């Protein structure tokens, strides 16, 4: 990361470049969230994440009471390619100044 040019932030994706090899948070369409180490990305926000935790939030309607039941399902995946068109936001790790 040494050189000044490499660490300069001029456009949104530069922030993602600075998150390479760091754990990031990704919010996806259809109520999915990922946390994982960023290993690769491109201009479409296609990504490869490592050591990923996925959280899926689903809402079901109970057969008898017709009440909404909110469920979260978690799973871990060692290495995952994520297609960029499903990405809503990417949050880099918090940095202490």
């Amino acid at each position, binding site marked *: 990361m040494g050189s000044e040019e*490499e660490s300069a932030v001029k456009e949104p*994706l*530069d922030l993602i*470049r600075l998150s*390479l*090899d760091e754990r990031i948070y990704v919010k*996806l369409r*259809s109520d999915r969230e990922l946390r994982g180490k960023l*290993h*690769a*990305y*491109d*201009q479409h926000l*296609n990504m*490869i994440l*490592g050591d990923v935790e996925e959280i899926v939030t689903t809402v079901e309607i109970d057969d008898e009471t017709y009440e909404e039941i909110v469920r979260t399902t978690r799973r871990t*995946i*060692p*290495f*995952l*390619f*994520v*297609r960029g*068109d*499903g990405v809503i936001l990417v949050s880099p790790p918090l940095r202490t100044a």
Partner: protein
Amino acid sequence: MVGSYINTHKFLSGFSSSSLYLFIAHLLSLNNPVLQLFFSYFKDLVGKEVTVELKNDLAIRGILHSVDQYLNIKLEHTRVVDQDKYPHMLSVRNCFIRGSVVRYVQLPPDGVDVDLLHDATRREARGG
């Protein structure tokens, strides 16, 4: 084997002259020929077992047969993860998946060279 993902010289050396023509025709059809990190990455993954998860929640495990610039994927020896839910997929042994409907691809751990990916990503970011 995982090679250098966007090393063009190495990339071209493996092509015959007719496929070289096709390769160049191919580059001309892309907006930016340098930017195809994941296309190159998936090409190196051919022959390995992956699980492709689609936006309609269907998940298919199979051997990666091929991939193209749109990240369309062809799988062989396929098996649907939740077979009971998708009985119509029972006799499908190989398939073509349109790139645009893919949500995830679960990758084999031995198909991910983290350092190579970091280098290729930085190079790609400079090219863009």
